[in-house]
């Protein structure tokens, strides 16, 4: 009689494919996953507590450190939340520039997603190609804000500086080359039978479960639910742009992977339109130097970040510092679904599942 037993292995926090300090305690039956437990907090920096001791303006640079892969998105969400709290209207030009920057961030984040998914399932070269192309976006960020990865470019009431002259040709040539880049990814990765075999029918997340687990963003849309906050509840000036919300059918890893590639195309569409309509004018609204929202005011503002619904809940007590600031981090809540989609799969699927959920641990742990 052969006795068999489960093996418990710790995928992370030090593991090549956990995207940072993610710790998935995995119970294995051979290669099959019996259970997964997610442990978080390895990069917890208590951002919410820090916010309580910083003024509204001072907290801006901390936001980019939440989701450092899409640097402008959290900063934009936060600034818009504070603007909502104050009742400030942002000048047209600033809104357009914000949208351009946000969508560039989304493209950068999704490119990194494709690359890291590729390396997680063993195709090392895919990562390098994606990084090569993402580098051009990073260059544009450096042009505009002076920082590549964690730019602090958004300000309450607008943006820090106007776009430099060299930005326009750079973004134009990037958008012109984007179809070729995507072609390359598609030929190298998307069309690859091994990759398809690994992603199709693994990590299936049905639509009802996705909603119940609070999954948002591309992961939710991969399950077939056309819910994009840019469309459902247009913030900023998103209602002016014509773009589609791609949706998947099954909610497996393959759908989640395709979502990202198609969203890059949609973001490019938005940037093209925004560049065309970009008006001249002010880039920052008149905002007092010391920002004091009225006492007891509170706001929950959410934007569609590259990872999902990024929400900022801010309570003001009338002082220059937020009384309470809560970040609804999409990565954090998306990770809650990891055990559900991994159970019953293979160990190799777990790696693909983590990659396609696309968590950023800076955001999940805050």
């Amino acid at each position: 009689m052969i006795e068999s037993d489960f093996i418990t292995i710790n995928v992370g926090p030090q593991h090549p494919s956990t995207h940072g300090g993610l710790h998935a305690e995995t119970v294995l039956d051979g290669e099959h996953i019996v259970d997964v437990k997610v442990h978080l907090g390895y990069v917890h920096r208590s951002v919410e507590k820090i916010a309580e001791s910083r003024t509204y303006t001072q907290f801006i640079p901390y936001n980019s450190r939440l989701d450092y892969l899409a640097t402008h998105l959290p900063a934009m969400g936060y600034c818009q939340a504070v603007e909502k709290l104050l009742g400030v209207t942002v000048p047209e030009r600033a809104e357009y520039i914000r949208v351009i920057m946000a969508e560039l961030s989304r493209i950068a984040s999704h490119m990194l997603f494709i690359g890291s998914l590729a390396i997680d399932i063993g195709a090392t070269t895919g990562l390098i190609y994606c990084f090569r192309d993402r580098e051009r976006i990073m260059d544009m960020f450096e042009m505009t804000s002076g920082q590549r990865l964690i730019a602090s470019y958004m300000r309450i009431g607008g943006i820090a500086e106007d776009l430099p002259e060299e930005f326009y040709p750079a973004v134009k040539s990037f958008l012109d080359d984007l179809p070729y880049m995507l072609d390359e990814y598609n030929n190298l990765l998307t069309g690859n039978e091994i990759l398809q075999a690994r992603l199709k029918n693994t990590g299936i997340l049905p639509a009802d479960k996705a909603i119940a687990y609070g999954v948002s963003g591309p992961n939710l849309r991969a399950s077939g639910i056309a819910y994009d906050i840019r469309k459902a509840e247009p913030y900023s000036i998103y209602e002016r742009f014509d773009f589609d919300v791609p949706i998947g059918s099954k909610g497996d890893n393959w759908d989640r992977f395709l979502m990202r590639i198609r969203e890059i195309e949609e973001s490019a569409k938005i940037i093209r339109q925004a560049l065309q309509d970009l008006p001249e004018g002010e880039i920052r609204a008149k905002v007092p130097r010391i920002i004091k929202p009225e006492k007891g005011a509170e706001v929950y503002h959410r934007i569609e970040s590259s990872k999902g619904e990024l929400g900022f809940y801010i309570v003001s007590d009338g002082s220059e510092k937020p009384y309470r600031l809560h970040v609804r981090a999409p990565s954090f809540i998306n990770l809650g679904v990891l055990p559900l989609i991994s159970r019953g799969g293979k160990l190799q699927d777990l790696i693909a599942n983590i990659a396609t959920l696309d968590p950023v641990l800076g955001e999940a742990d805050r």
Partner: protein
Amino acid sequence: MYQELKERLLKNWDGKIEINEGKDFFEIITQSEILFTLMEFLKKEFGFNYLANLCGVDYGEKFTMVYHVCRIPENLKVCVKADIPRDNPEIDSLTCLWPAADFQEREVYDLMGIVFKGHPDLKRILLPEDFEGHPLRKDYKAV
């Protein structure tokens, strides 16, 4: 829709809840005792299937739990608030209604020290297990 919701809510819990129709969120201020039944009502009767956000706020003498609940893909949204006394910070867990509450309630328990009754695995999530105190409380002194 919101009108119907308002009527039904007032019919069921008249006097126990307060309704504010803000420009952003349809706000329901309730009590921690009836929170669970109210939420169940919202989910079952009105199809609010998506718990977007939940967090606690420390107001000194009391805590307030704030829930943002949506119905997607139609994007109907409701904000529910419930006060909890500071000396006995307990409230019903919503994990059985929305599994999304699992991680978020653990986070609130971890950082704010609010106990969720009926949560399957109420442990610290962001801070180490042996951490003392709840940092997001206003009386927490960082060393």
